[in-house]
């Protein structure tokens, strides 16, 4: 192995092999995926998100939420986080895809179905301990504006519970970033029945709302619902 060129050729070929297998092949297989037509619904899946939710995704990325939250429902996560495990199809519209690798907080792939209440999310972002006692999550006070009440109290001001109020005469209102992040949270739901990951029982009816409705019915099993 005293010849540089031969060494180089060997290095090149062995790395090219792994490049072909782990970059080219996945791209060939998944890169041209198309929208799916679920068995039980008319709309193509995944459905597009609202512009506000798309902005929220960028907030999610910028604030590094993926440092503590995954968006991956594995088979063993199904009872806790969703009705079925997630597959590549679920992430087709995501840009960037935020798989995450650590769960210091719960999985969020289905948070829109598990917790559809925007008010809950806003309080949770402002101070997670309002909604979940002993939460480790940082407070995102910078996504909110604390301001003096002039005249009427703003309609979208947070209803802060006892122990978390701000000074008399002040109110806390969400900024655009907080609103869009919550819109994004509400848009996160992977509940269409797909060939590679069907829902446990495909609803008999053709009602397009059947799957989402049953997803909400499953919320009581959630671990981070406000009741707990």
């Amino acid at each position: 192995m005293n010849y540089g060129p031969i060494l180089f050729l060997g290095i090149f070929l062995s790395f090219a092999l792994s490049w072909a297998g782990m970059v080219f092949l996945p791209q060939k297989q998944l890169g041209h995926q198309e929208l799916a037509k679920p068995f039980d619904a008319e709309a193509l899946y995944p459905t597009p998100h609202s512009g506000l939710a798309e902005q929220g995704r960028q907030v999610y990325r910028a604030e590094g939420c993926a440092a503590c939250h995954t968006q991956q429902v594995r088979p063993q996560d199904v009872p806790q986080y969703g009705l079925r495990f997630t597959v590549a199809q679920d992430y087709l519209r995501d840009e960037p895809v935020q798989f995450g690798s650590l769960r210091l907080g719960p999985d969020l792939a289905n948070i829109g179905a598990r917790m559809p209440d925007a008010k809950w999310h806003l309080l949770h972002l402002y101070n997670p301990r309002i909604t979940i006692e002993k939460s480790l999550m940082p407070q995102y006070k910078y996504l909110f504006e604390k301001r003096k009440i002039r005249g009427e109290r703003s309609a979208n001001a947070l209803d802060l519970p006892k122990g978390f109020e701000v000074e008399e005469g002040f109110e806390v209102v969400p900024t655009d970033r907080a609103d869009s992040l919550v819109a994004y949270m509400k848009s996160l739901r992977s509940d269409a029945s797909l060939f590679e990951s069907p829902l446990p029982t495909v609803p008999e009816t053709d009602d397009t709302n059947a799957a989402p409705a049953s997803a909400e019915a499953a919320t009581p099993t959630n671990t981070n619902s406000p009741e707990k």
Partner: protein
Amino acid sequence: MMRSSSSPNQPASGAAGDRDPAFPTVEKIDASCRGALMFLFTAALLWLALSSLFAVLGSVKMHAAGMLANVDWLTYGRVRPAAVDMFLYGFLSQAGIAAAIWILCRLGKVALVSGVTLIVGAVFWNLGVLLGVFGIFTGQSTGYEWFEFPQYAVAVLFVAYLIMGIVGLLTFAYRNERHTYVSQWFILAAFFIFPWLLSTAGLLLLVSPVRGATQAAIAYWFANGFLLLWLMPLALGIIFYMVPKVSNQLLNNHYLAVISFWSWLLTAGWSGIPVGARLPAWMPSVSTVASVLLLVPAVAMFINWRATWIKSPAKQEGGVAFKFISFAAFAFILWALAFAANFLPPVAQVVEFTLFGLAIAQLATYGVVAMAIFGAIYFIVPRIAGTEWIFGRVKGHFLFSVAGLVLIVFAWGVGGILQGTSWNNPLSDFMKSVRVAVPFIGIGTIGFLLLLIAHLLFLSNLVSVIRRCCTACCGSGKEARK
């Protein structure tokens, strides 16, 4: 045969017989590296200290949720990736390149091709890291783990790397000693693969992003390649150089080294897709096999190193450098075992998405790569600067680094297993798994504090070396003028 003809056991005669009079002397080689390498090492150490400062901050923020809650650039989700990237790009990559280039010079018996060009590359590299960190703090992170730097920073890093990489490759090409040694293979592989990794990830994730889950597949591939085919080969090149050098022995077995090199290179690139990743089943199962196969080169290399240093009665000669290097060697084999286990489905069932994964990454990046680089810096700097370290601080650095690392890896490892066990218990709710982990996160914070102390000691030691080196130079200059 080989052993008797060029035994380094008789340094005086062996050394003289070894050297072709046409080759530059080691003093000349080291002098050619002085300016550029001191620049790279100093910049790297500054990033190291800065990164450990932010790592402590990030770890503290895990306990104090309300701390600095009004400052968006200091939120946990920005501080943590910034600290990690400063460490990976600012310190490990930069100091790794410097140590690798010195090894290429020494093994090739050739002076550094162009120190000035290397410094130019290094300046751009630091600019790239600075821009990238700035990008993360201002919310422009790309969202991909270990690849958070925004597009413009990656572009600067790529150009900077090309400049430095070309210097390294030319130094290898112009080598006087045509015979190559295993360290050179690993370093060349790393130098060649890194730009490929960076450009592929840059193009397919940032410039014209691929669709959907393919992004995740490529992000996994990049992060895996960054560790196994960039940082690790640099560290392995250093260990393969330092072990025989410090033990004053021949490397135990050439062919074993050949096998480990090629089997490492052929398998490493296929690992990296976690068992539970939401990608078609073949991808994680291929990664599982690759990660287990990596045990073969890992064990082969460890056997080779151990058989080399065990023969040497004089291994203490290398002193402090050897302490770090042998720690890296032991950490390497431990990491290889944990890494393979982590990719086995029954183990992943418990530890996936827990702190355990962070523990393994810390063991790899700090226990193996950083420790090997520390050893190399302690070995190289006195030679190129002509000034000795302050021994007490080196000892302190070693103790604090080892203690900090052990605390972090232990705490996150155990905490992760407890977290995963809690998730797999259907009666337990999520908050229970968080409460279980909290004390271990606390121990981890203490670990990061120890690392910060270690790195400040290291930095102060380097500053003192540079100061003495400068006075020595200026002093001798004055004497010469007299």
